């Protein structure tokens, strides 16, 4: 891939002010980067680093933004230099576009209209360059780890043969092994291609020694400083400057100067905590014995044939008052699942989980069950506080102050609906937390509009507001800058100093050191990470069957013909013919009787409901069988109802069989290439569909977070409805955030403009003819049988 030399980058008086912002993100930037130069781009949070990368990637074009000056790649304005720059963002999930890794890498080349034969060569060499050539091209991208997903994204970028690699905190969401993999893959790719590299990163030590130049941006202005990257380690003043911006500088401890745990403040009375007697230190609070945990409910679900196996078994944990415990271990070892179980948010799959009298509290607290999962969320919030990895999952109110107040309001006296705190106490707690979190100026701000560090602090504050003894945190330092890290450690030390207890799942060794935590390492004797729930939602693809290998459009036409025949008439005979024919076709789809039953029984039930509805509501004809006063069931309406129910079942059966054997990617290929639907929309929908499983996971987590905040879907219909609406809103926020990032990814890979090619041709083969003919035959047979039997009942007559 040596033919893509590096791009020379020039910013000439470039400014960008986003719509709705009062100050520019970047103003009057003048910057020259020579071809092949490797630049580490730094600056305080909000200094416009991402804006610059987006500008260079040519994906900034807001109709209402204020822009001035130019960004040039080899002298060409960035937005006209499609394919010259590739952009990798922080969140691995939104860096993947398609569900098979080969397709995902090919995507950018297709958008640049690279000829088909060349696309696959590019795919192979790009996968090779990032060290993913060991996987089949059909390997599901959902089954890759975070680090592998980022390397896949890099491969997708390399397939464009770009001259500029733009990396926006590419390793912030990864574990240490993933960080090294991605960093090394980027360096190797840069070496192979000679591309210019610009990396934005908080943790300078990852990149410092591999880069040529350090460029520091000034917030709301241009370049503040430009130095050789080597000076990061040698120049004391530079190190001080970078530290003051919240960057992680190699060899510097962000906790430097922070008071030692259990320091001077310990004897002060803390109004957020009940006073602790010293002799209670070390009392057992929560004990897990031979605990088995799993993401999915341990009971059978109707859409799944078998009980989901636990992710992790035989866990022994003791949590004692006043201690800090860190759970570590490889990705996919089940750490987060264990934490959710210990927090009473997921049911245990086996073993025991026991909260002691010490955790349950005196008086009415002793009435609580041993297993926190059985507690009401109002009892949970006052005892176990759960801080989620994504702070936004926890937000349910419109302002920072209301968010803090909610935690305190939701805490109730066990067994009663009586609030634990008086309104005056609640207000006092909110005021204290606003100061302690440094969020007083933002008390009325919408929580979603805060910066990353502010959100992290608020997410801890909302939990502290209810005064829980035990604080649980899931990867609290992921993606945070050094300032936030320091503030977080400081908050947690205060909690522990005041007698509280902390349990955290983390990869971050600095975090464990900062809290002097006891470490519990989970061994990885479990299989690799579970795939997201998409497969489960789709009922499992049967792509290997005869029908699975047929052209998607042919299958669609067949179902269309059958459905059209059924829609024309409401009668039992045509429905019966279709049901029998569909059952006969089951072996072609590789579906067994048991599998069919699992897929179909809800629809059979639906058909019965449809029959019942019509029997009650259709026009009376023939003898009245049942008279309910306000309506009747007559012979005629019952017969009509039965015919309608049978028809409903017959309509759904073939479509379930066809769709359970059709991969969405194949369907999209066929719709765009053969049916000529607009490619932008078909591919947009396809890329979104890949997020289905992920969004379903978000939905579940949002549900956990609502329970953890004391506003879960329990109790009366009103509370359930409110909770579901809040969960739905939370999902929409996450969906749009993901979509916006995905749109940037797709556009930076050349999507959305001009002609494109297709890496795989969707076309009919001889074997697809029987599928279409079969559909036509079944439809015709249904019509003829109904006419012959005299039951034909045309609906539009």
């Amino acid at each position: 891939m040596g033919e893509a030399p590096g791009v020379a980058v020039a910013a000439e008086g470039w400014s960008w002010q986003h719509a709705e912002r009062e100050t520019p993100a970047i103003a009057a930037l003048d910057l020259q980067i020579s071809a092949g130069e490797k630049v580490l781009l730094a600056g305080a949070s909000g200094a416009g680093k991402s804006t610059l990368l987006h500008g260079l990637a040519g994906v900034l074009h807001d109709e209402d933004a204020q822009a001035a000056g130019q960004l040039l790649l080899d002298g060409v304005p960035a937005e006209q230099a499609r394919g010259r720059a590739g952009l990798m963002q922080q969140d691995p999930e939104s860096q993947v576009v398609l569900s098979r890794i080969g397709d995902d890498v090919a995507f950018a080349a297709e958008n640049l209209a690279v000829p088909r034969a060349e696309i696959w060569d590019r795919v192979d060499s790009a996968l090779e360059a990032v060290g993913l050539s060991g996987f089949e091209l059909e390997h599901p991208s959902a089954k890759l780890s975070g680090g592998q997903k980022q390397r896949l994204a890099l491969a997708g970028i390399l397939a464009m043969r770009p001259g500029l690699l733009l990396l926006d905190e590419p390793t912030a969401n990864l574990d240490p092994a993933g960080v090294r993999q991605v960093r090394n893959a980027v360096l190797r790719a840069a070496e192979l291609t000679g591309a210019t590299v610009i990396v934005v990163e908080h943790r300078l030590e990852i990149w410092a020694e591999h880069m040529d130049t350090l460029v520091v941006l000034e917030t709301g202005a241009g370049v503040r400083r430009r130095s050789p990257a080597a000076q990061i380690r040698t120049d004391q003043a530079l190190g001080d400057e970078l530290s003051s911006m919240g960057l992680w500088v190699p060899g510097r401890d962000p906790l430097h100067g922070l008071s030692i745990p259990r320091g001077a403040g310990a004897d002060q009375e803390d109004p957020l905590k009940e006073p602790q007697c010293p002799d209670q230190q070390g009392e057992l609070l929560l004990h897990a014995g031979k605990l088995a945990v799993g993401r999915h409910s341990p009971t059978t679900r109707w859409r799944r044939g078998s009980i989901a196996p636990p992710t992790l078994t035989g866990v022994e944990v003791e949590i004692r008052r006043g201690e800090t415990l860190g759970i570590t271990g490889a990705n996919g070892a089940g750490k987060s699942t264990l934490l959710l179980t210990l927090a009473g948010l997921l049911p245990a799959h086996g073993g025991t989980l026991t909260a002691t009298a010490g955790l349950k509290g005196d008086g009415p607290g002793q009435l609580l069950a041993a297993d926190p999962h059985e507690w009401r969320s109002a009892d949970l919030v006052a005892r176990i506080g759960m801080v989620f990895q994504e702070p936004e999952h926890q937000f349910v109110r419109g302002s920072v102050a209301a968010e803090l107040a909610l935690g305190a309001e939701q805490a109730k006296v066990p067994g009663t609906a009586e609030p634990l705190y008086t309104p005056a106490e609640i207000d006092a707690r909110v005021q204290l937390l606003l100061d302690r979190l440094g969020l007083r100026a933002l008390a009325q701000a919408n929580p979603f509009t805060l910066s990353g560090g502010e959100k992290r602090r608020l997410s801890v504050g909302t939990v502290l507001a209810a005064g829980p003894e035990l604080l649980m945190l899931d990867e609290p330092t992921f993606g945070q800058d050094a300032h936030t890290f320091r503030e977080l450690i400081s908050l947690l030390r205060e909690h522990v100093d005041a007698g509280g207890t902390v349990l955290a799942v983390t990869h971050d060794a600095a975090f464990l050191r900062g809290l002097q935590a006891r470490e519990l390492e989970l061994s990885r004797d479990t299989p690799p990470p579970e795939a997201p729930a998409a497969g489960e939602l789709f009922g499992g693809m049967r792509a290997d069957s005869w029908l699975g290998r047929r052209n998607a459009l042919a299958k669609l036409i067949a179902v269309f013909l059958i459905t059209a025949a059924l829609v024309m008439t409401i009668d039992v005979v045509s429905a019966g013919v279709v049901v029998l024919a569909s059952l006969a076709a089951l072996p072609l789809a590789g579906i067994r009787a048991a599998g069919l039953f699992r897929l179909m029984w809800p629809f059979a039930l639906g058909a019965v409901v449809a029959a019942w509805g019509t029997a009650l509501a259709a026009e009376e004809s023939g003898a009245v069988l049942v008279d309910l006063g306000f309506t009747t069931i007559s012979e005629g309406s019952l017969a009509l109802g039965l015919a309608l129910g049978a028809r409903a079942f017959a309509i759904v059966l073939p479509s379930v069989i066809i769709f359970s054997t059709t991969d969405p990617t194949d369907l999209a290929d066929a719709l765009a290439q053969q049916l000529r639907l607009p490619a932008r929309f078909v591919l947009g929908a396809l890329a979104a569909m890949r997020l289905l499983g992920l969004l379903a996971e978000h939905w579940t987590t949002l549900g956990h977070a609502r329970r953890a905040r004391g506003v879960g879907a329990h109790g009366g219909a009103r509370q359930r409805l409110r909770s579901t609406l809040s969960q739905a809103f939370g999902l929409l926020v996450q969906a749009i955030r993901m979509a916006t990032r995905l749109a940037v990814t797709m556009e930076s890979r050349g999507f959305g403009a001009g002609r494109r090619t297709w890496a795989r041709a969707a076309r009919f083969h001889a074997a697809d003819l029987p599928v279409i003919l079969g559909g036509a035959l079944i439809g015709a047979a249904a019509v003829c049988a109904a006419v012959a039997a005299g039951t034909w009942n045309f609906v539009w007559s």
Partner: protein
Amino acid sequence: MSSRKTTTRSWSWTVSDIVVASVLAVASGVIFWGWNLSYHLIGNLFVFYPPVETLVHGMWLFPAVLGALVIRKPGAAIYCEMVAAAISALLGSQWGLTVLSSGFMQGLGAELVFLAVLYRRFSLEFAMLAGAASGLTGGITYHWIVPMYAYAPLETIIHISCFALSGAVIAGVLPWLATRGLAASSVLGPLASRRAHREPMLLGGTPRG
């Protein structure tokens, strides 16, 4: 790239519009799925008089209005409702392939309302009108275009009226509130609706930048 301010927006879709609309539709599919799990409880309420079951069917219409309110471009209502319908078809829909025709018709109802005001008004009354229109066209589809019911005339009228009423509330008021909430959360940055939370509640909510 020179400084410029625009007051009338382009009607063509950007990549952000397409991807956000698509993901909204998929998220709607997930909400349907979450809703499905509790629907069977609510559905039982209507066993004695099925024609009023549509009182909760507005739930199936919300992607159309939400898509239109968030994207504010021609075709958003139809596109979001159709993609959401396609997702439910893939997940296994009660109605098989016919969800595509009902999805199209439901989207069309909402679309026509916003087309009538040239995609310039997105205030509460138009959202409710769009939700109601969506229920109306949805009901018409169920009874006459791709008939899935065979009710007597009175029951048909009740069935469709309840659908429209439910559309106005569940698919009108709720998406309007959601759009304002999303704008207030500043996640709509690249979209035409980013100022939705500062617009007047009733007539006069123009999509000015």
